[in-house]
């Protein structure tokens, strides 16, 4: 080994030269900013970039950086151009273009910042946020507070904001302008930076124990994305989900919606807008009250008018109805009266006629009957007359008897010298049999055969 030596400064210059040769161009380096505030108020900014273990969050490596005064305004202008998205501060992920340098007086390696890529930081923030939103959505945390019913008249407002902020003034003046009797319970809260998340959660806890509140409002004015990134908070979202009161948020930003907004019952873009939402809520209630009163009055007036008209109609119906009813009954009575007056007389007439007819029929029947009897009688008389012996005698027949009075019916019943009595029409003759002659056989039509006929 050579006995020559280098002074420390000579060595450091040598190291510097070697390093510069080793890193001839600027490199893009990514890491998390730390100790940024250390150089507050100084021309040059000295800070650190660290790389943390993604699981344990322990620092795996770190390196010093410097932004020289001459480069600082350029870096700031780049940030401004990128939608004023964020400013350099601790805990944010950045991507710098740096030269690797060595500072001989301190003997330390450091990176000189030449440029910044803001899209990297924005992407990181956005990625982080999307991951968080997906997780909260999956757990149902974003919907919890929305399920609470907003009070009809939210006049008692718990307010989480910073008391020296424009947001506080905007919010309160908007409420005051409405003229409604709002009562605001302020919980003065740090609304940006590292402590914001925990302080907002504490504020929610404190206000949740307060009685008589209707809603809680979380509000602040606009700022850069990194200013507002503390509201992309899992803890705040979970706290809101656990609240028994509706939580409204008005976190001033145009570009994006924060996780706090998504977890809230309702959100608006600015403190003024969320105040207007509350005022509208009260105004709508009043309006609905007015409308209801109006409706009650007009409906009841209509009902009364209707009933009056109905009553009138019924009275008219009653009168005309009863008049018609009585008229009908009167007409019926008259008809009945006519009937009773005329029908019985008519009936009596019919009865009389019927009696007369009966009488006539009777008379005729009796007459006919007599006539028939008479004819019969006459027939009988004739018949009887025809059979009378006198009639036979008159026609020239006679009856001959023996002396003993027996009718002589046969030649054999008499002998010579017998006395016989002959009865003729209008007299009797006594004679003696002087001769007897037998006569031939006689046949009587319809009767038994007679041998002889005697006179």
């Amino acid at each position, binding site marked *: 080994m050579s006995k020559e030596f280098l002074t420390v400064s000579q060595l450091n210059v040598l190291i510097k030269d070697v390093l510069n040769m080793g890193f001839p161009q600027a490199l893009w380096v990514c890491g998390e900013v730390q100790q940024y505030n250390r150089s507050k108020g100084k021309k040059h900014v000295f800070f650190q970039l660290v790389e943390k273990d993604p699981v344990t969050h322990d620092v795996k490596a770190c390196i010093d950086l410097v932004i020289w005064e001459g480069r600082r305004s350029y870096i700031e202008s780049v940030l401004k151009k990128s939608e004023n998205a964020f400013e350099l501060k601790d805990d944010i992920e950045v991507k710098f273009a740096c030269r690797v340098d060595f500072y001989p007086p301190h003997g330390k390696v450091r990176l000189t910042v030449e440029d910044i890529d803001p899209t990297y930081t924005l992407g990181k923030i956005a990625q982080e946020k999307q991951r968080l939103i997906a997780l909260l959505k999956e757990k149902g945390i974003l919907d919890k507070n929305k399920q609470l019913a907003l009070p009809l008249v939210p006049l008692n407002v718990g307010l989480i904001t910073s008391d020296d902020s424009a947001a506080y003034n905007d919010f309160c003046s908007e409420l005051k302008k409405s003229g409604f009797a709002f009562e605001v319970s302020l919980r003065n809260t740090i609304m940006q930076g590292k402590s914001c998340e925990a302080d907002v959660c504490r504020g929610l806890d404190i206000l949740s124990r307060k009685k008589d509140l209707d809603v809680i409002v979380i509000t602040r004015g606009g700022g850069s994305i990194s200013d507002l990134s503390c509201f992309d908070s899992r803890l705040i979202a979970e706290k809101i989900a656990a609240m028994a009161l509706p939580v409204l948020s008005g976190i001033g930003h145009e570009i994006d919606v924060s996780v706090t907004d998504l977890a809230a019952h309702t959100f608006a873009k600015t403190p003024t807008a969320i105040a207007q939402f509350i005022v509208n809520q009260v105004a709508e209630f009043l309006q609905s009250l007015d409308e209801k009163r109006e409706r009650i009055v007009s409906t009841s007036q209509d009902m009364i008018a209707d009933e009056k008209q109905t009553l009138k109609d019924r*009275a008219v119906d009653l*009168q005309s109805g009863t008049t018609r009813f009585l008229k009908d009954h*009167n007409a019926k*009575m008259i008809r009945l009266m006519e009937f*009773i007056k005329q029908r*019985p007389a008519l009936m009596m007439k019919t*009865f009389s006629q019927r009696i007369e007819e009966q009488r006539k029929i009777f008379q005729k029947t009796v007459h006919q009957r007599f006539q028939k009897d008479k004819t019969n009688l006459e027939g009988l008389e004739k018949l009887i007359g025809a059979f009378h012996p006198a009639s036979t005698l008159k026609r020239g027949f006679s009856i001959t008897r023996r002396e003993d009075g027996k009718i002589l019916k046969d030649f054999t019943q008499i002998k010579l010298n017998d006395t016989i009595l002959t009865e003729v029409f209008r007299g009797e003759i006594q004679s003696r049999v002087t001769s007897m002659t037998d006569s031939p056989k006689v046949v009587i039509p319809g009767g038994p055969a007679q041998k002889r006929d005697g006179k």
Partner: protein
Amino acid sequence: MPEVKYSKAMKRLEEIVAKIESEEIDVDELSAQVKEAVTLIKTCKDKIEKAELDIKKVVDNLDAAAQ
């Protein structure tokens, strides 16, 4: 004579009329039934007149009250 209900009187009247109309009635009954019918008609007419008068009075009162 006890107060007869109109509807009852009317029913009886209609019975008598039906009897007379169908000529089922006996001459012996006829005069008695006609007498009864006349009495019933008178009763009914009286009732109608009275109701008419009452209703007029009540409706007049209603009109007076409405004004």
